[in-house]
């Protein structure tokens, strides 16, 4: 019975805020801005990725909105560090990779429904491969200023 009590008590322990055990993973996907994706503020998930949303992805990354890696598995991996650059709020490395498809090797942490990723190596940077601007135009519409006549 004591053992059962101990088990029940330990079940409460993970919420206490200790560093979690990470898992090495390889993820291929697009570096996106998470707020536009999660909130739907600018439309559906297909519209807030790729070349259509590239300018906004730059704005959001520079503005300190978290970037995520939208994996081929459909999961979002919140990026906390890329190859030693821990500037996850407006950092240079993540800005350079906005909208790019990359292959990442890193450590995955799962916590309270979200995936967090420490990218140890960008194994491949494939550039912008989702050419969806022909389908959606610029998202948001004002991302590209109308040329002056």
């Amino acid at each position, binding site marked *: 019975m004591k053992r059962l009590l101990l088990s029940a008590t330990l079940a409460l322990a993970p919420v206490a805020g200790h560093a979690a055990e990470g898992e090495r993973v390889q993820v291929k996907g697009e570096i996106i801005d998470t707020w536009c994706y999660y909130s739907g503020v600018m439309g559906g998930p297909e519209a807030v990725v790729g070349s259509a949303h590239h300018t906004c992805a730059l704005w959001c990354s520079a503005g300190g909105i978290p970037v995520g890696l939208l994996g081929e598995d459909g999961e979002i991996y919140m990026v906390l560090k890329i190859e030693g650059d821990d500037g996850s709020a*407006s950092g240079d490395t993540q800005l350079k990779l906005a909208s790019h498809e990359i292959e990442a090797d890193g450590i995955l942490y799962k916590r309270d429904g979200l995936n967090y990723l420490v990218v140890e190596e960008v194994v491949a940077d494939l550039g912008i491969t989702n050419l969806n601007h022909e389908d959606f135009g610029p998202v948001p519409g004002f991302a590209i200023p109308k040329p002056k006549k």
Partner: protein
Amino acid sequence: MKKFILSLACMALPMAASAEDFSANSEAKTWNLFAEQPARFEAKVVDILCELSGDCPDNCGDGKRQLGLLRAADGVLVYPNKNSQPAFTGAALELAPYCQADVEVDGLMIEDPDLGAQNVYLIQKIRNVGDAEWVKANTWTKKWAAAHPEAKGKGPWFRRDPRVKAKIEKNGYLGLGLETDEAFIADWFSE
């Protein structure tokens, strides 16, 4: 004894299900988002990378790292993605002055299972626990302006940001190169 064990197990449930209602007493303003819910709660401000991996610089990274809210009621790590300005601006600089502090926050929680959004937060105001006055979470653009005096001018910050401008000048608004940009813009804006 069985009853006691059952009680312990039940205590664990809200932590797993994140079912507690934090909308009581919230004064958060709507953004008319599909999955928003007002949420006011107490929490500790933490460096998320430190919290997860044990990689812990001084002062939560001095504003360059993303910060989280370790909710007091249930230990859930809430991720503030957004401050209260409709200007493509995040929450880390709003939270940075409160590194490791116990605070109360008010804002909007985004919970959308279809998109994998869970414990994603838009922070509208913050105060130290026990303080009477709220502080609006809308200081990002002022901090950006102070850090970029060379970019002073008309228009929103994101049109003047040196790094963003350099990227667009090099690779275009679509990020595909200036030739692709030029052709698309000519077609898109043709009458």
